[in-house]
């Protein structure tokens, strides 16, 4: 039955309407990924009104290829403007932007795109092969497990993304605090909102990313004159060194893809957090001089998050297809699309609708490969952006930053928020404070709080002695021990 369904899916996927839909989704995704502020969620929301009359095969071809292309092309602004094209590329900027500044953009981008394809394909294949096997994994991660995983993520990034762990921890703590602005999720009590309706809904991720990472670069760009520190336009070979870097780090690619799939599959964790986990693991696995290069243009710091964030797209579909529970924001919209199209996610996706499941996997594989091919083809011309003069780049960058923030949350205060975080980001950069822990604390903080509250209400303090939380605590102890030991050795 499975083979019949697979060949049926192949037959349907390679028809003109489905391929045409995939191409349309791909083009839209490339744009939505490359323009900061636009993202996969917005893209699919805009598509929803148009999918009513389409067959599920065509509709999902458009939407899934859009998601895959966004996860791939969002690397461009991460490299050139220190702005993630969408939040899932936030971890990529940590080493992507320094690579561009070192005049190494072509190699970095090529490697990023290749591992994006590999990660995306691994994510899709895992979805194909392990959908039934991953169901117990999804079920095993209840609130206590999610809480400890989130705390582990914040701790890892706080310790590993900067030179000084104490500064990282403080930045992470600041992020956690910023995440508490808005309504208390349990009691509905307003916190730190100062009577403002705007703040009642919490601080917004996109303006914070834009302010924290992009605006300081505008200032720095104005001082330096161009992104790349070298003035000579010598980008070297892009394709071969990029390919070589992927092959040399093949296990890192696979490991990060697995992190991406699992992160995507656990509802509430998602691609952005998974990319940071993968980055943290890459840093943790490096030794000596290798480790010191992270944050200064280390290619492994690009490979790990890029592989993870593309793989997460396949992972996010696991709880959606298995239980009808979205793994993240993108799959929440996909769930709406399922219901609009009259398709019930769940066991029937492995039964009577198996051909649709297979078609989704095929679309994910093809669109990841196609998006990568397109991005690699335009990498070399795109990499020249790094050598453009600042008087050309600054107006474009400011437009992207302010437009991107405003589109994400259309309110005048959004612009104020972006500028305020721009000042904070500049000060952090100036005084050598890592900004990633702040962002991770902010993104994961509400998740941690909510899951802690649910854990305490449901299990009491006993939630701490469940196997996965215990394992997470052991890893946390190890991370702290290694960081302290390294600090002592450095002194």
């Amino acid at each position, binding site marked *: 039955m499975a083979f019949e369904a697979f060949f049926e899916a192949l037959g349907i996927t390679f028809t003109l309407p489905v391929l045409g839909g995939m191409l349309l989704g791909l083009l839209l995704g490339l744009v939505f990924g490359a323009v900061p502020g636009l993202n996969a969620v917005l893209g699919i*929301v805009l598509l929803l009104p148009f999918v009513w009359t389409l067959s599920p095969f065509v509709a999902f071809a458009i939407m899934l290829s859009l998601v895959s292309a966004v996860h791939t092309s969002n690397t461009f602004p991460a490299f050139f403007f220190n702005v993630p094209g969408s939040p899932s590329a936030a971890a990529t900027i940590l080493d992507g932007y320094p690579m561009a500044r070192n005049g190494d953009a072509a190699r970095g981008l090529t490697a990023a795109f290749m591992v994006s394809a590999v990660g995306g394909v691994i994510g899709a294949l895992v979805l194909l092969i392990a959908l039934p096997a991953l169901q117990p994994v999804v079920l095993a991660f209840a609130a206590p497990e999610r809480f400890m995983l989130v705390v582990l993520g914040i701790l890892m990034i706080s310790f590993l993304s900067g030179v000084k762990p104490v500064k990282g921890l403080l930045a992470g703590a600041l992020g956690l605090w910023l995440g508490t602005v808005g309504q208390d999720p349990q009691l509905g009590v307003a916190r730190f909102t100062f009577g403002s309706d705007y703040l009642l809904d919490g601080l917004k991720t996109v303006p914070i990313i834009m302010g924290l990472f992009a605006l300081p670069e505008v200032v720095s760009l104005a001082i330096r004159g161009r992104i790349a520190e070298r003035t000579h336009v010598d980008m070297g070979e892009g394709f071969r060194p990029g390919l070589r870097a992927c092959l040399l780090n093949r296990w890192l690619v696979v490991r990060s893809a697995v992190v991406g799939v699992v992160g995507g599959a656990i509802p509430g964790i998602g691609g952005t957090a998974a990319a940071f986990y993968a980055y943290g693991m890459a840093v943790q696995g490096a030794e000596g001089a290798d480790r010191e290069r992270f944050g200064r243009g280390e290619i492994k710091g690009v490979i790990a998050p890029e592989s993870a964030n593309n793989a997460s797209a396949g992972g996010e579909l696991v709880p959606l297809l298995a239980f009808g529970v979205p793994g993240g924001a993108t799959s929440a*919209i996909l769930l709406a699309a399922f219901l609009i199209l009259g398709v019930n996610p769940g066991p029937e996706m492995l039964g009577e609708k198996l051909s649709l499941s297979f078609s989704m996997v095929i679309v994910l594989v093809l669109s990841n490969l196609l998006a990568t091919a397109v991005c690699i083809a335009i990498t070399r011309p795109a990499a020249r952006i790094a050598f453009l003069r600042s008087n050309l780049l600054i107006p474009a960058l400011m437009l992207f930053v302010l437009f991107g923030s405003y589109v994400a949350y259309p309110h005048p205060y959004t612009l104020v928020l972006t500028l305020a975080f721009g000042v904070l980001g500049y000060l952090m950069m100036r005084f050598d404070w890592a900004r990633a822990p702040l962002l991770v604390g902010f993104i994961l903080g509400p998740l941690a709080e909510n899951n802690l509250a649910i854990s305490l*209400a449901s299990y009491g303090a006993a939630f701490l002695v469940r196997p996965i939380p215990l394992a997470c605590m052991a890893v946390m102890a190890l991370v702290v021990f290694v960081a302290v030991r390294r600090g002592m050795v450095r002194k």
Partner: protein
Amino acid sequence: MRTHPQIRGVTLFVAFAALVFTGSIAVAADYYAGKTITIVCPYSTGGTYDRMSRLAAKFLPRHIPGNPAAIVHNRPGAGGVIGLRSVYKAKPDGLSLIHFTSPMVVRSLTGGIEDIDFKKLTWLGSVGGAHYIFAIRSDRPERSIQDFQTTKTPVRVGASGPSSLLTQAPKFLQRAGKFNLRLVPGYKGYNPMALAMKQNEVDAVSTAGVAIRVNTATREMHKDGTIKLVLSMGGAPPPAPLKAEVAALPKFVDAIADPKDRDAWVAFSGLLSASRPFAATPGLPAEPAAILKKAMADMMADPEFVKTATDQGFVLNTLNSQEAEKLILSVFNLPAEIQDRLKALLK
């Protein structure tokens, strides 16, 4: 040739009526021609209110002269208050509509949205209601009302934010029904709550019957006997596949001993019958108000709309603008002591 004065009169009347009619059509068509209606969904994308808003964005303009465009704007936050406030304060031009859950009106009593007077909204109709059900994992021993009132181990019930029906309904069970429950709040809607029930993180949920049918996890758990429906809480008629089963269940109202608590619950559960209303900005001029009310009634009678909504799992118990307004605002006509009891139960 002389015409009979009566015939002349009738002819004149018909001509005048035709003029008025075509004129009013022209005015109506002029009013919305080339304009865009924004339907605010005060909840996040992907949920049932979002989907119904999108259905309305597709079907409502077909019934409005002038064929305006319609878009959905999701403005989630603060349990729907942010979106509601945006429509409440919008220009009264008939271009800002909202689709929200009617039990939100109770927040006028419990506090937090004193700046919104629900009586001033322009009510357009309600596309449906919900029949609330209490469902529990089968590995818990409780089945009857008495079991829930006397059990020694509290039943863990999933809950959401404070103004969500998913929280308000179990509060009634706990406070008016004296059920021994432990609320586990924090779930962002029904989907994660359903997964939590599958993970044995919560023992029970109190939700709309349609949610149990539409959500894959609970539909399957109900089918394979992992969960059981144990109590009918009331509201609109249940979805057809659950009708027989729900009819045989004990009624929550019978579990409430205190007459004032019972009255409070009856008033609250009445809101469930019109839990999917559409409304427009207060102070809407008569013309766009009449156009929108008629368009909403026509949309709800449109066979294509009914089929599409039903295919998506919605149970349509439609109410016109007057019926919906009367039912929803009845909360404000309750005696003061019942209003106070409602406040106390939902605090």
